[in-house]
C-alpha cells in the first residue's frame, strides 16, 4: 500500500515539474518576444546600476534575445523534460526494487558493505542503491526493458521508446557537442533521427511541446500500469 502511495506522489511530482518547465518556457518566450517587438518599434530603455551607469540598453538586450529564445531557453527546457523523465524512471525502478527485493536475490555485498547498517531494511536499501546507480547510466531503451523485465508493465510502446531515445539523443548532442550532429546522435536516435551528421540541431516549438506530451504520456501510462500491479 505504501509503495502505491509513493508511486502516486512520484508521478504527481514529476507531472507538476513537467508542467512547470513548459509554463516557464512559454512565459519566458513571451517576455523575450515582447522585448524584441518593443525594440523593433523603436522603444528605448536602459538598465542602470546604483551609480546610474547604463549596464544595458535596448540594443544590447535585443541582440541577445533570439539566441536566448531559440537556443538557450529551448535547450534548457528540453533538458528539464529529460531530467524529469529520468527522475521518474529511476525512482519507479527504486520503488519497485524496494517493494520486491527478491528481484535482487542473486546480488552480493561484502561484510564491509553492511557492517555499518542497522537492520535488514537498511541492507536491502543498500542493494537497491547499488542497482539504481548503475541503471541511471543506461540508455532509455534499456531503462524500459529492465523495468519491464521485472514489473511487466507492458508499456511504453516500442514507438514511444524510440521517441524518447531521440529526445535524449537531442539533449545529449546539445550538452556534449554544441548541437552539432554526429554519428553518436544518429546511433542513439535510430530511425527517429531528425538531422544528418554535420548539421546543427534545431528545437522547433512543436518538437519541444510534442516532447513534453510524449514524456507526460509515458509517465502517466507507466504509473497506471504499475498502480494496477501494486493495488490489484
Amino acid at each position, binding site marked *: 500500500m505504501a509503495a502505491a502511495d509513493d508511486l502516486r506522489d512520484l508521478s504527481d511530482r514529476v507531472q507538476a515539474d513537467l508542467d512547470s518547465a513548459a509554463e516557464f518556457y*512559454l512565459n519566458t*518566450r*513571451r517576455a523575450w*518576444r*515582447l522585448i*524584441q*517587438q*518593443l525594440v*523593433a*518599434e523603436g522603444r528605448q530603455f536602459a538598465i542602470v546600476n546604483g551609480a546610474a551607469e547604463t549596464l544595458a540598453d535596448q540594443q544590447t538586450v535585443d*541582440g*541577445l*534575445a*533570439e*539566441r536566448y*529564445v*531559440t*537556443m538557450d531557453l529551448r535547450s534548457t527546457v528540453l533538458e528539464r523534460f529529460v531530467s524529469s523523465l529520468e527522475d521518474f524512471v529511476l525512482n519507479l525502478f527504486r520503488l519497485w526494487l524496494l517493494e520486491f527485493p527478491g528481484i535482487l536475490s542473486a546480488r552480493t555485498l561484502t561484510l564491509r558493505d553492511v557492517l555499518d547498517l542497522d537492520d535488514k531494511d537498511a541492507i536491502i536499501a543498500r542493494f537497491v542503491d547499488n542497482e539504481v546507480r548503475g541503471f541511471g547510466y543506461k540508455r532509455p531503451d534499456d531503462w524500459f526493458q529492465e523495468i519491464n523485465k521485472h514489473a511487466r508493465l507492458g508499456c511504453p510502446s516500442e514507438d514511444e521508446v524510440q521517441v524518447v531515445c531521440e529526445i535524449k539523443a537531442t539533449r545529449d548532442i546539445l550538452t556534449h557537442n554544441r*548541437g552539432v550532429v554526429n554519428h553518436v546522435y544518429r546511433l542513439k536516435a535510430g530511425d527517429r533521427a531528425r*538531422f544528418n551528421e554535420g*548539421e*546543427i*540541431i*534545431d528545437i*522547433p*516549438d*512543436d518538437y519541444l511541446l510534442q516532447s513534453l506530451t510524449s514524456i507526460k504520456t509515458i509517465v502517466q501510462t507507466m504509473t497506471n500500469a504499475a498502480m494496477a500491479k501494486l493495488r490489484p
Partner: protein
Amino acid sequence: MIDTRTRRPLRVQTSAGAGAFIMLRLDQVARVSPLLDANEVKYWIDDEAISIDGRPAVTVINLSRNQDPEFVQRLLDSLD
C-alpha cells in the same frame, strides 16, 4: 516584400549563435509561408503573436540554423 509595420522591406534578421528569423505582422504570414514552403525552406512559426497597444499582432518565423538567411532574404525580396 514590404513590412507593413515599418513600410520598409521585410528583413531576415540574424543573431549570433541563433538561427535567423523574420518578425512580421501575423496577417503577412499567409503570404510568406507558401513562398518558404515552395522553396523547401526549413522554418517554424511561433504559435503565439503579440499585439501592443491594440495594434495588429506580430509574430516570428524562425529559420532552421541550417538555413542560409541570404537565400531567404532573396525570396522575400522577390515578393511584391
